[in-house]
Structure formats: structure tokens, C-alpha cells
């Protein structure tokens, strides 16, 4: 594998505009504007097999193709840098190391989509990333790589930054559009999908930071080359994995998509920290069902992870050792989701606090045998919520019930958390 996203990285600071340009930066944009039609750029993204890096893995080229070609009025591109899914910090690292990839990627995507006004929606707390982006936008503007008639072509693009004030639901694409418009960020009904009716009612594409940052390489090196960076014939491209928890060296790394879980932990993370033995992990951010030792060989790619009962999600891997109580871990996750529920629909607003209460009971030794059935029912019922937050919250709970039912039962029969008395 060759680094696609981290190739320009310096160890201790962000790459500079001059360094990025000297290493081939903005060559893809130059080439596209000189030689390629918007349709050809879009075709390259389709051919690359790129699947969105924001969590759902939707094919990027296909998403772009939903935008109607000849509707009047503006259309928008939004880069989703809300990144509030616990265990996920890859977009922050990417922007702290190299904001230019995103600027160039957004310019290419905007060209392909006929967008003249694009936004980066960035969470609170990412001040360094936001400063980097502001600087890189200003540099690109003065180099004629953004703004009016870019590089003398007919293509113009305004790129704005929206800094949010902290709320997980703002990452959901329709809630994000409400947030950007300055409204309370409850999700919108779908359909109509954003590609038809999005920001201010106009066609809109929402893509993740990592997704857009890959576009320059797809154009400059070609889709076949890009696709070939995966670890398996099916896996297209590289992936940022951000690891946290009980490993020796938790960090954010770029690896071939499809690298196995075991290789990630034993390789770049240098195994478990001293005294720790692997028990389980969250494979792709807080809303994904657990993996255990039996999943060590699973290729970390969308379909293999789904086949193994979880989701690749954001690539945020949270590793737990033998002393971790999985009931307590799940309770922590459910507390997060219950707090971050936007309150719009009843299953989520009422259901998540009830699940939290039930898990608290069990963790504190007051659980009853039928609580397990009640939890199982909620995993099912919360799928009927208005947006994907509540079903996502059920990911780890479903994993707990499937993989750690023994541990739940032990809490109930011992009338205490076995990890507290051990």
C-alpha cells in the first residue's frame, strides 16, 4: 500500500501549502479543470469503488449521481466534520496534518457536481483543525485555486466553514442541514433525499472528510490504482483507523481497507498494553456491535465486518481488556446516546432512558431475569425511530445480548457486578 491520505504528513506539524504543492498537491484539480469534464470526474469516482467513510459506507459516485443535472438554482456540497461518534478522531487528525487534501477534494467534488458554494461543518473542540482549514482556504484563494474562475477556467467555488457548538445529532446529514441553516438540529424526513431537496431546499451532497480527501488521489493516480490500495481484491482504497483503549500504542493510522483486526492491534498498535489481554472491541465507533477474539481474522472492510455481525462504521476501534465489564461499557455507551437524543421522536426519547435505567439496575445488582428479554425487545423496537441514532445506539446493546449474555446473567444472579468484587 502507498499512503493516500497520510503521504504528505510531517511528524510534528501540518504540511505547508508549498510543501503540499511541491509534492504534487493540486495537480489533480489542475488536471481536471484542463482535461476532464465534470462527468468524467464523477465517472472516475464511480470506477474507484469508493464507499463513504462517514459511517454508512454508501457508494460515493452513486450518491453524486442522484443529484439532478438540470434543476434551476444553486446546489450545495457539505463536508461533514461533525465527528462526535465516541471512539472516532480520524477527521481531526487528517485536518491537523493536511487540510489541503480536503480543500482540493472539495474543489474536485464541486466541479463534478456543478456546485459553486460548499461548506465544511466542523464540530466544536476542533480548533486546530478549523484554524488549519481557514488558513488553507485563504492560501488556495490567493493561489487562484478557489474563488472566481479557478485557474482561468469557467468554474468558481466559494468554500465556507461552519463551526458548530457541540451535539452528536448534528452529524446526521439532514439534522446537519438544519443546523447549518441556523435551525434546531432535528433530523428531517426522508424522502425527499438531500440530493433532491437539501440545504435551503436545493440539491445537496453530504460527504465525510475522509471521503472527500480521497478524491484528489482518485483523479491524479486513477481509479484503478486507488482501488488497488486495499488489502483484498474487494476492498477499495485505504482507510483511516483510529484506535483507542487498552492497546500499547493507540493512534490514528492509514492502512489498506480490509486489513484484519488482529493485524491492526498486533501491528501498528503493538499489541495490548502490559498486563492486558484482549477481551473485546468496538470495531467502528460507538454505534457498532462488539467484536471478540473470534473476530480477530475479520477483514476490516464494509462487507466482511457486516457479515461478521457488526459495521465498519467510522473505523474507530475501541479495545477492551479482560478487566472490562461489558455491561458497564454498554451502559456508558447508552448514557451517551440517551443524552445526545434530539428528543424529536418517542421511541428514542423514551426508549433510550429506559434502556439506560435497566442497564443501571443490572450493573448495580438489582436486575431481574426478565430484564434481558426487555432489553432484547428494545433492540427491536428502537429500529422504528425517526432517524438512525436510536438504531445505532442499539448496536452495542445487541452485541452485548448476543456475545455477553453470560455476563449479564452473572450480574443478575450474583446481585452485583462481578468485576467490582474480583
Amino acid at each position, binding site marked *: 500500500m502507498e499512503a493516500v491520505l497520510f503521504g504528505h504528513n510531517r511528524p510534528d506539524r501540518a504540511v505547508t501549502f508549498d510543501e503540499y504543492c511541491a509534492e504534487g498537491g493540486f495537480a489533480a484539480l489542475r488536471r481536471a479543470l484542463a482535461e476532464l469534464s465534470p462527468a468524467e470526474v464523477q465517472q472516475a469516482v464511480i470506477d474507484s469503488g469508493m464507499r463513504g467513510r462517514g459511517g454508512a459506507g454508501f457508494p460515493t459516485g452513486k450518491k453524486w449521481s442522484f443529484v439532478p443535472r438540470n434543476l434551476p438554482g444553486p446546489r450545495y456540497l457539505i463536508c461533514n466534520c461533525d*465527528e*462526535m*461518534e*465516541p*471512539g*472516532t*478522531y480520524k*477527521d*481531526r487528525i487528517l485536518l491537523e496534518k493536511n487540510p489541503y487534501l480536503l480543500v482540493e477534494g472539495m474543489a474536485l467534488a464541486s466541479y463534478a457536481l456543478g456546485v459553486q*458554494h460548499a461548506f465544511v461543518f466542523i*464540530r*466544536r*473542540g*476542533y*480548533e486546530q483543525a478549523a484554524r488549519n482549514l481557514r488558513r488553507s482556504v485563504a492560501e488556495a484563494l490567493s493561489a487562484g485555486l478557489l474563488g472566481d474562475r479557478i485557474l482561468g477556467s469557467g468554474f468558481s467555488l466559494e468554500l465556507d466553514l*461552519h*463551526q*458548530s*457548538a*457541540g*451535539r*452528536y445529532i448534528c452529524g446526521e446529514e439532514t439534522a446537519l442541514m438544519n*443546523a*447549518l*441553516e*441556523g*435551525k*434546531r*438540529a432535528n433530523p428531517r424526513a426522508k424522502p425527499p433525499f438531500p440530493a433532491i431537496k437539501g440545504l*435551503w431546499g436545493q440539491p445537496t451532497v453530504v460527504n465525510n472528510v475522509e471521503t472527500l480527501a480521497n478524491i484528489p488521489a482518485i483523479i491524479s493516480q486513477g481509479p484503478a490504482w486507488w482501488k488497488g490500495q486495499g488489502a483484498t481484491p474487494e476492498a477499495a482504497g485505504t482507510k483511516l483507523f*483510529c*484506535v*483507542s*483503549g*487498552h492497546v500499547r500504542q*493507540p*493512534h*490514528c493510522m492509514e492502512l489498506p481497507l480490509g486489513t484484519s483486526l488482529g493485524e491492526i492491534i498486533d501491528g501498528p498498535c503493538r499489541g495490548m498494553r502490559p498486563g492486558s489481554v484482549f477481551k473485546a472491541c*468496538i470495531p467502528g465507533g*460507538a454505534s457498532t456491535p462488539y467484536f471478540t477474539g473470534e473476530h480477530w481474522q475479520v477483514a476490516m472492510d464494509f462487507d466482511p465486518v457486516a457479515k461478521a455481525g457488526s459495521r465498519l462504521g467510522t473505523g*474507530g476501534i*475501541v*479495545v*477492551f481488556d479482560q478487566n*472490562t465489564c461489558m455491561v458497564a*461499557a454498554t451502559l*456508558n*455507551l447508552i*448514557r*451517551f446516546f440517551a*443524552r*445526545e437524543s*434530539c428528543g424529536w421522536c418517542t421511541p428514542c426519547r423514551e426508549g433510550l432512558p429506559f434502556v439506560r435505567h435497566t442497564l443501571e439496575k443490572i450493573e448495580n445488582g438489582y436486575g431481574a431475569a426478565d430484564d434481558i428479554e426487555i432489553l432484547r425487545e428494545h433492540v427491536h423496537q428502537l429500529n422504528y425511530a425517526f432517524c438512525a441514532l436510536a438504531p445505532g445506539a442499539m448496536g452495542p446493546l445487541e452485541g452485548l445480548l448476543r456475545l455477553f449474555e453470560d455476563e449479564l446473567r452473572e450480574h443478575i444472579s450474583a446481585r452485583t457486578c462481578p468485576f467490582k468484587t474480583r
Partner: protein
Amino acid sequence: MIPESLRHELQQRVAQAVTPREAAVDVLKELQAHYGWLSDEAVVEAAAILGLTPLQVEELATFYEMIYRRPVGRTVVHVCDSISCWAMGGETLLSQLEQRLGIMAGGTTADGALTLLPCSCLGNCGDGPALMVSEQLHGPVTLDSALKILGRF
């Protein structure tokens, strides 16, 4: 009341937006920076600048984790309580901080210097347990290094 210069600055920000309320979060943040928190007076001022009703501003102000609708200390210490930090001892860190600062989570020290607030994932999960103090991320922190960051050591 905010100074005329700030009002003018915010009106310009609003004028540049696609629609006035697109600038709402920016305006709330600026007013919060001026008052230290988003006071009732600030809500009314924001509404006037944005062309919204105070209720519409309230809908937004109460939605976001980093907009404070109650007075806070001069520095707010956000302690991440999400999963990666939890795995690395975040709960212990929070209770130790409560003890050493003599306040409960959500409280403000008697001298009005510090407010301690648990918060959702800060996106610093690889360096847990993590804190955010004055928009700056820190981690991994111990009780001692946290107190040092807060100038309380």
C-alpha cells in the same frame, strides 16, 4: 448591553450569511464570549441581531452542549465521559477532580474561577482520558497533570 462595535461586527456577519439565521450559532458564541455565558439579556440581543424571536433563539441555545444558559466560571473544564476515556479511567479522574476542586460535576468553584462539566466525546479518544480547557484539547491526563493545566497545583 454589548458594545456598539461588537453589535456592528455581528450585524456584518449576519449580512454576509446566505440567510440571517445561518449566522445564529456564531452570534450566540460571540455573545457568550462577551458575557461569559448566554444570559437572558444576550438571548434578547441575539434575537434582535438575527431577526428572530427570543423563543427561536432559546430553541437553539438550549440545544448545544457548548452554549451555557447558566452562569459558569471564568474557565470551563470539560471532562470527556465517553467510552474510550471511560476505558482509560475517566470516571476516576472526574471524581478526583470533584474532590480536589471541592465541587460536584456541574458546579463552579467559590472564587468563580472554574466550572467542571462532564461532556461527550471530545474527539481525542486515542489520548484518553481527555479534557478540553479553553478550547484546547488535552490528554492523556492524570489528576496531577490536569491540576497543572488548571493552574491548581
